[in-house]
């Protein structure tokens, strides 16, 4: 029906251009708009302040699943093309490389067994029980937040696969973030580099504790908060998760300190760190399904009380733990 078109010619041709569209506005339009705005404000308030609408979000998530699926098609096709049209020599080279890596990993795993038992003995001495590893679920990053200041990614595992809010996300190199919204087939993960995200960490070298907050800028960086001028931190130090806050398992590598700026006139030093996880480039990640909550709870309750006294005693331990845990999530764990 070209009669409802807005080109001038068709109106002149005598089609009934004066139609109901003339009368759809009026008082009703303003009231309708105001009603919907009011409704939206209510929804926004209920959603962001109280979280009443988890169910609705979850339900609407079904409707959005196909959009995510189609949006991911180009990436999958290009991956498929990469797989199919790869030369034999490339494959052989890759195969050789993987074999080498496997060999190295096997050797490290052999050491891990002895380190685990040694570690457990040491931990028993400290009356802390802690299991290493945990079940992991392999996942893929299929999208990321359209707002460059909000650092979140979408993974292709959701409530159907047993993902719940608060689970940690890792890649092969380190901690990436935590699940903060679960839909049925997908979930949103808040990255450690997001400004709203604070990771409790400790320096692997000496056990100094700190809080690592995501960067305020679009850069993929972490800033250590409230680090006093006297704390021993250097560029190049490895930061591992300290297990406090009970969200992350202990001793996963998080970041590497890139700069320490201590201005005598300021209260705190400015310490910046680079996340170890390949946030921008990797697609393959792991969700840690089982957290060792109970033991960590014990240690984190104990820790602040005896923080000063314990700092010296715990010196040799984090080093050993860090080495062990970094190798823990191997494919054998699934």
């Amino acid at each position, binding site marked *: 029906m070209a009669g409802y078109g*807005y080109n001038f010619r068709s109106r002149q041709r005598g089609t009934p251009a004066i139609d109901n569209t003339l009368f759809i506005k009026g008082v009703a339009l303003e009231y309708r708009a105001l009603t919907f705005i009011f409704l*939206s404000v209510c929804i926004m308030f209920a959603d962001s302040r109280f979280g009443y609408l988890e169910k609705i979000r979850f339900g609407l998530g079904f409707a959005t699943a196909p959009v995510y699926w189609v949006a991911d098609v180009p990436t999958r096709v290009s991956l498929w093309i990469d797989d199919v049209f790869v030369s034999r020599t490339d494959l052989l080279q890759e195969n050789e490389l993987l074999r080498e890596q496997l060999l190295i990993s096997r050797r490290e795993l052999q050491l891990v067994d002895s380190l685990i038992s040694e570690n457990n003995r040491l931990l028993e001495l400290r009356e802390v029980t802690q299991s290493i590893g945990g079940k992991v679920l392999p996942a893929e990053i299929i999208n990321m937040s359209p707002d460059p200041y909000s650092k979140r990614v979408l993974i292709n595992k959701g409530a159907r696969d047993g993902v719940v809010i608060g689970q940690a996300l890792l890649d092969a190199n380190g901690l990436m973030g935590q699940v903060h919204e679960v839909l049925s087939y997908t979930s949103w993960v808040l990255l450690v580099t997001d400004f709203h995200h604070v990771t409790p960490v400790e320096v692997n070298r000496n056990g100094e504790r700190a809080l690592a907050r995501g960067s305020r800028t679009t850069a993929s960086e972490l800033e250590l908060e409230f680090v006093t001028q006297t704390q021993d931190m250097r560029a190049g130090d490895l930061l591992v998760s300290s297990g406090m806050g009970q969200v992350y398992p202990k001793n996963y590598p998080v970041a590497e300190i890139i700069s320490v700026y201590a201005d005598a006139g300021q209260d705190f030093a400015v310490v910046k760190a680079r996340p170890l996880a390949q946030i921008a480039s990797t697609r393959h990640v792991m969700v840690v399904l089982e957290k060792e909550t109970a033991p960590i709870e014990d240690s984190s309750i104990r820790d602040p009380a005896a923080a000063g006294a314990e700092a010296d005693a715990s010196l040799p331990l984090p080093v050993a733990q860090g080495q062990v845990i970094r190798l823990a999530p191997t494919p054998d764990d699934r």
Partner: protein
Amino acid sequence: MQKRAHAIWVIFFSFFVAYLLAIVPFPEWAMNYRPEWVPMVLIYWVMALPYRLGIGSAWCAGLLLDILEGSALGLNAISLVILAYVTLSLHQRMRMFTSLQQSGLIFALVGLNLMLCHWLQIVTGQTINVSLLFLMASLTSAVIWPSLFQLLRQIRRSFDVH
């Protein structure tokens, strides 16, 4: 309303494509220049078929966009409702505009939409962005509008959507 709806699936499909384009990952530097596909498609359909799409459909479209972007529920809904309201009250004038005038109006409307979203994001504590570079998206939207308009008009006529 006054007639049986015809080929409504075309509208749904165009929204589906708009959603896709809105969430397809972009390189970091291009994020601020991504045209606002969903508001533009909404403006088109409200302008062309004001008796079919109105404030209610804009609200639903906004809610779906909120879920897709993982933002606070109702954020895009508010801004799209306001967008639909302005478009509904201007649609007869907009049809008479030249494409340059339309682009100018789209620039203003999408800018308004972006600014509203930004304010609401700040209110709900979702972003800490203080630079106004995100407004560049309204410029790219205005540049793209004439071709999008032609395309959607072709589609609407060939499928006889009403």
